[in-house]
């Protein structure tokens, strides 16, 4: 069993196995389910992710009516072809927005690790699947890679905005996605861990101060930020860039920052964006 990133990477390197293998083996051991059951359950999660990634591209409106339709705009912009960067990156952005718009419409999503951050990991994995021409079965295995890092973060820090701010949600999701991206691209377990830490460091200190307490503003676009950040971190790690602060120390830092964060900035809508003039207006209107 692995308790931290160091142990996770060590086990994968020592046994010359992929990170997703280590996660599957642990799941089988801890939950006493068969390998087939575990993999087929993940295949279901993957299918829900895939459906929600494209559903929002058609245009959905949130339960509150505050947001929606932005994934559709992004999709049209990419198809138009006149883009500044790269279509893989922008596809990830459009999927991330799509999934979180579907979430805000009370549609069906797979939390990863939470609902508010559910767009990040699928967006990265699905955009890279297109880019690398990987089949569904192999792509889906990398959700275990992401899950392994999420498991460590959740048990050593937190993954809810109410406990640790947005850094615990989008930050964790971005870190998980970065690691999965590296393994999908053929990087080593060590590189995946560096990508995880590089991504998480960039998200430290992010507060959870959504308008009217809804998982909409700024959450939906922050999923796009988390996905882009994950791809950037993965590219850096694949280039050989390493984190100066060791992997598990970065997770501890996230934990300490969350503990120090005032409760007004932890999913209570009592500060930050939530109490701007616009924030107050929406709260008045919706609650």
């Amino acid at each position, binding site marked *: 069993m692995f308790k931290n990133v160091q142990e996770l990477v060590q086990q994968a390197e020592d046994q010359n196995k992929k990170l997703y293998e280590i996660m599957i083996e642990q799941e089988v051991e801890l939950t006493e389910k068969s390998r087939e059951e575990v993999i087929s359950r993940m295949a279901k999660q993957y299918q829900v992710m895939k459906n929600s990634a494209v559903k929002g591209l058609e245009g959905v409106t949130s339960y509150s009516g505050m947001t929606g339709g932005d994934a559709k705009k992004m999709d049209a912009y990419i198809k138009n072809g006149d883009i500044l960067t790269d279509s893989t990156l922008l596809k990830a952005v459009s999927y991330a927005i799509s999934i979180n718009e579907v979430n805000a419409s*009370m549609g069906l999503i797979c939390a990863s*690790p939470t609902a508010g951050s559910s767009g990040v990991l699928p967006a990265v994995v699905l955009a890279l699947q297109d880019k690398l021409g990987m089949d569904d079965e192999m792509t889906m295995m990398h959700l275990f890679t992401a899950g392994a890092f999420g498991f460590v973060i959740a048990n050593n820090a937190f993954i809810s905005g*109410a406990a640790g701010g947005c850094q615990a949600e989008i930050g964790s999701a971005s870190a998980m996605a970065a690691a999965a991206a590296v393994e999908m691209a053929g990087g080593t377990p060590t590189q995946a861990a560096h990508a995880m830490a590089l991504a998480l460091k960039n998200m430290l200190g992010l507060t959870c101060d959504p308008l009217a307490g809804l998982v909409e503003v700024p959450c939906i676009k922050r999923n796009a930020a988390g996905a882009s950040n994950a791809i950037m971190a993965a590219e850096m790690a694949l280039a050989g860039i390493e984190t100066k602060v060791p992997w598990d120390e970065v997770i501890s830092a996230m934990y300490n920052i969350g503990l120090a964060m005032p409760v007004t900035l932890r999913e209570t809508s009592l500060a930050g964006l939530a109490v701007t003039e616009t924030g107050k207006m929406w709260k008045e209107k*919706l609650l």
Partner: protein
Amino acid sequence: MKYRSVFDIIGPVMVGPSSSHTAGPVRIGQIARRLFDAQPEKIVVRLYGSFAETYKGHASDVAVVGGILNYETDDPRIPDSLFKAKELGIDVSFVKEDAVPEHPNTMEITLSRGDDNIDIAAISIGGGVVRITKLNGFPLKLSGENPAILIFHKDAYGAIAGVASTLAANKINISGMDVSRIEKGDIALMTIETDQPVSDNLINAITKKENILRVITLSE
């Protein structure tokens, strides 16, 4: 370890918008219903901390009632659960509490039907994972993921040993056990999580034992 499975992280599959404030309350509602083991006539939900500030926007209200109606986290009927409850003649009320809770996502639920009622307190710790922290005022730690038996008993010699030996004789393995009491020598609550489900016959046998006051089961 707060999280044991990779599907606590990659999951649950759920109706949005929040795992801690929507899926979590669905699961809390489900456990409350399973502990009460009947459709309530009255539901009172008291909300604390982040739940109190944001429950409407996160649809925590329809979620917890959906759970009490036995809906799963991915049930598309969740948004309409309050209408359904009304249709079933269930009286539902929500109370926003000002007290600062130990955990930011805390709620208390009272379910009643005639003279029968149950009080639980629960927290939603993130990613849809929840813990029941109190039952009728007695502190406990219950994940709702394993079968469990909750036994109110007189705080007397032999009460615990009697239950444990009955379980052992029936080849039921105990995976977790906890005893709590409010005052010494008064009433205590024994919480036993088991690897195997416990049959009704066995529950009846335990209920008849000396010093046992009330037995509540939580099946899988």
